[in-house]
């Protein structure tokens, strides 16, 4: 298989709404390589979520082309190419953490004999070992979000799509989860698409930062990061980091999103 994981060419998406068409994506061109950590950043309404949903076959583009692992998004979905982590953990309150992680396995018809081992493995990846029998309401918000990441990892998709997964968490928990996510990414070699509003978060996590601008939603800059794969939290004070952050900020300004 080629190293192209997500390939978008001239992607367009217009929503028909009661008050006229909304141009959510216009002429989006992007290519994501295997093992990339791609962040999408931009002001509200610039189409970050829409782009991720197109990749996940949750929205149909109105123009252009997109392939995921060389297939159409619908085929990729059926081939279990990706796991999607939503902004809210969305765990079922009537299932334990283990039960929630088994949910996609049950739906996909993965043999029952494998479930226990898979659950144990992904719980370890997100550092939730020992919480299998707990119910979601017994966990903090950060732990719930980790459980939802574990669920997205449980069926071995090699792409992880995350839409502001830590948006509702406080800064300290966020830092910790970001560090863990980087560790997880290094260990598993997955390709990650990550939507965020935070410039430091985007720079800290990514190998590639996609800066977007609204009305119509489009990509205005794609920044390749040359930070080392090993990133302690204090890398955020290094000049390289600050230079990248500045470039992102300038890109956002140029897209006159924040004025």
């Amino acid at each position, binding site marked *: 298989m080629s190293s192209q994981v997500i390939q978008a060419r001239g992607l367009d998406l217009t929503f028909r709404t009661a008050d006229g068409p909304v141009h959510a994506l216009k002429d989006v061109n992007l290519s994501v390589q295997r093992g990339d950590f791609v962040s999408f950043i931009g002001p509200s309404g610039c189409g970050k979520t829409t782009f991720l949903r197109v990749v996940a076959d949750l929205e149909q583009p109105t123009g252009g082309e997109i392939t995921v692992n060389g297939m159409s998004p619908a085929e990729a979905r059926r081939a279990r190419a990706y*796991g999607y982590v939503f902004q809210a953990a969305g765990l079922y309150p009537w299932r334990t953490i283990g039960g929630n992680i088994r949910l*996609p396995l*049950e*739906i996909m018809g993965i043999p029952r004999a494998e479930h226990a081992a898979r659950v144990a493995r992904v719980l370890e990846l997100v550092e939730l070992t020992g919480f299998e029998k707990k119910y979601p309401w017994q966990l903090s918000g950060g732990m719930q979000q980790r459980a939802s990441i574990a669920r997205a990892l449980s*069926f071995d998709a090699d792409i992880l799509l995350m839409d502001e997964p830590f948006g509702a968490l406080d800064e300290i928990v966020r830092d910790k989860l970001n560090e863990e996510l980087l560790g997880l990414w290094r260990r598993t070699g997955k390709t990650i698409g990550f939507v965020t509003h935070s410039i430091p978060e985007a720079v800290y996590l990514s190998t590639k930062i996609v800066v977007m601008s609204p009305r119509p939603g489009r990509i205005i800059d794609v920044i390749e990061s040359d930070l080392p794969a090993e990133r302690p939290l204090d890398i955020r004070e290094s000049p390289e980091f600050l230079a990248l952050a500045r470039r992102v900020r300038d890109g956002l300004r140029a897209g006159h999103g924040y004025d």
Partner: protein
Amino acid sequence: MKCVVPVLTVLVVFVALWYAFAVVLNAPWARDRAERAGTELSFTALVADTWAQEKPLLPAPHQIAAEVWHTTAEMRITSKRSLVWHAWVTLSATFAGFAMGAALGILLAVGIVHSRVMDLSVMPWIIASQTVPILAVAPMIIVVLYNIGVQGLVAKAAISAYLSFFPVVVGMVKGLRSPDRMQLDQLHTWSASRTQVFGKLRLPASMPYLFTSLKVAVAIALVGAIIGELPTGAQGGFGSRMLSGSYYGQTLIIWSALVGAAVCAGALVGLIGLVQRLVLKRMGMAT
């Protein structure tokens, strides 16, 4: 334990008001009789009389209690005068009607949630069905059913079912639709089938709604059974007790039937609440 005092206070005020109203409402009859007998009633004698009449307009609480005691504890429950026997007659129709109504309600809800055509075509009829004044048409339904050979328990249960399916449909539709867009999208990313979406998400998510509507439905089913008993005459049940009580001005019989019905309704709702708690606890959803 903190609520004991307020609860008792309300109860005492309620009972006191009841006694007061009994005096006010029953006094004309007491005075009437005294006048015909040519005697003069003192205030205490008047009060005592209003609380001890045989056919009072409003019986005093202790009279109703005595009547209920007399017709439950002091009689064989197989006796046709036993309130327990009447309760059983009404309750058996209630159970049958409730079971039919709940099953129908759940089935309709599943259909409505899964088919837009059904949503648009059936839902208006369901709502229209509840605007029919059932009290007015119940005798007609009973007579119609009687003519096609359906009578007794089944006819009463039909009215119960007719009344009780409605809250179940409404509650269950709401429950089955309670999963949000995100949860449905999530299942879509796992390529879940419609049956899986139903079994894994919609159905469990609807449980709290189902039980809430079942509580309403069971109380209405009891009312339906009583309504169904009114036109059938004296074949037993709370409804027939109320009817014969009102024929002969036996207010005590009416009131004890009312008390019996209220106790039954409370017990049924409580029972469903108990099942609800057990089920939701087993599902891990107890809060």
